[in-house]
């Protein structure tokens, strides 16, 4: 095993373990903190793929900004362990069945997709994830979708401000 494979498996185990802890934790604050660790593990995967920009933006936006807001809200509404509504057994069972079916669906989809069948991931290779090629691609080939999505963000922001002012 090369060092990259070892890192890949370690990061994957870390990501899956943290993701399970997100679900298992009774305290919502702990769940958020585990979720931050999941994002860090995913950023590690991006770095293995030589997508440095994606990795760091994932940390800035998700782990840095969105999760702070999550923590913020949970701290403000002060969710307690005992005040959390207990779900019935049947509801829990239904949730497990639905989640399991979705997982099966995803696995089946990945297995059927021809593009990724029998191919190994290009690790520590390729330049599209670096910032210069990415910027060039975004502002040349994909400039219209890029600008449209930024207008979309702007309208979302204006909407949030208007709702906040009411």
């Amino acid at each position: 095993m090369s060092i990259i494979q070892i890192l890949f498996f370690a990061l994957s185990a870390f990501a899956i373990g943290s993701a399970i802890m997100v679900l298992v934790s009774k305290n919502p604050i702990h769940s958020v903190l585990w979720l931050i660790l999941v994002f860090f593990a995913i950023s590690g995967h991006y770095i293995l793929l030589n997508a440095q920009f994606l990795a760091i933006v994932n940390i800035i936006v998700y782990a840095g900004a969105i999760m702070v807001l999550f923590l913020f809200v949970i701290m403000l509404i002060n969710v307690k362990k005992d005040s959390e509504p207990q779900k019935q057994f049947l509801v829990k069972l239904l949730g497990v069945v639905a989640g399991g079916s979705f997982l099966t669906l995803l696995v089946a989809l990945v297995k059927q997709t021809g593009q990724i069948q029998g191919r190994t991931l290009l690790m520590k290779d390729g330049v599209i994830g670096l910032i210069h090629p990415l910027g060039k691609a975004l502002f040349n080939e994909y400039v219209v979708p890029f600008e449209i999505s930024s207008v979309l963000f702007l309208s979302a922001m204006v909407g949030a401000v208007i709702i906040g002012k009411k």
Partner: protein
Amino acid sequence: MTLLSFDWALVIEKLILIVIIVLTTLLITLYTTFGERKVAAILQDRPGPNRAGPFGLLQPLADGLKLIMKEEIIPTSASKWLFILGPGLAMTASLMTSAVIPWGTDVHLFGRTIALQIADVNIGILYIFAVVSMGVYGIMIGGWASNNKFSLMSALRAASQAISYEIAMGLALIALLMTTGSLSLKTIVADQAAGHWWNVVYQPLGFIIFFICAMAECNRTPFDLPEAENELNFGYHQEYSSMKLGFYLFAEYVNMIMSSAIMASMYFGGYDLPFFDETTVAPNIAAMIGVGTLLIKIVLFVFLFMWIRWTIPRFRYDQLMNLGWKTMIPLALFNMLLTGALILAKL
């Protein structure tokens, strides 16, 4: 063995560099606390600490010893693991910034060329940004885990303050990136050292915005709302004692040193000594001169931080938010537009 097929010398070299940088930072931090007390004393016309050792120079050691000897208290209703994690996280996040700062030009030792920078990644500035956004977790987790209303209020204040000022900080950085054309701190400093003007000449407004935001991110007066004694007792570290409290206090000073280093690197030429041609001396000596120059610049910035702290009173909370959202962000946007227009006009 294929498992260990990487350059061990590089790993050892980087490890030594990390240890040196972290230890030096901590040592400087120790004396920054002393410097803070001396500067405060001078500005308030009193002698300041002068009992321990000559000129009071052993005062930081005495302070540290006192902190270590204090009783360790973890409140019974606190969330124990997070209570311990908080200060550690605050300290780690503040030290992590040092990884991308270029401390000097290359050194030649034992036939190897050693870069005085832990990691030259081509996303250096974004990395700093990510670490800054991590810094707030130490305060938030510590404040929440203490299970104290004042601590929680303070943690929420710290978080909202950090998020608000990060935006203006990022916009100021975008304007800087438009002039430099690179995200790598090494390239930015090398360009400034190679005979151009320092970036502060091109980005004076951007520098002022960045400086104010850095002050807010470090929770320094006039932005130290999270630890406003008269409203929140002590803020997020109220329940902390002994070395955990020490870590929180220390992290603030490490943050200050790191943001000074970043400002010196990005706007004031980093390790570049003005009016001096580094090629006239041996490369190793030139590197050492560079390290010394950067340290002097850092000390000057840290002094500026202290000067402001002991001169300007604290803002009210609504004033802080108004300044962040209604002044800094529009100013930063204006700066960005102006920079873009100037770049276009030059072409």
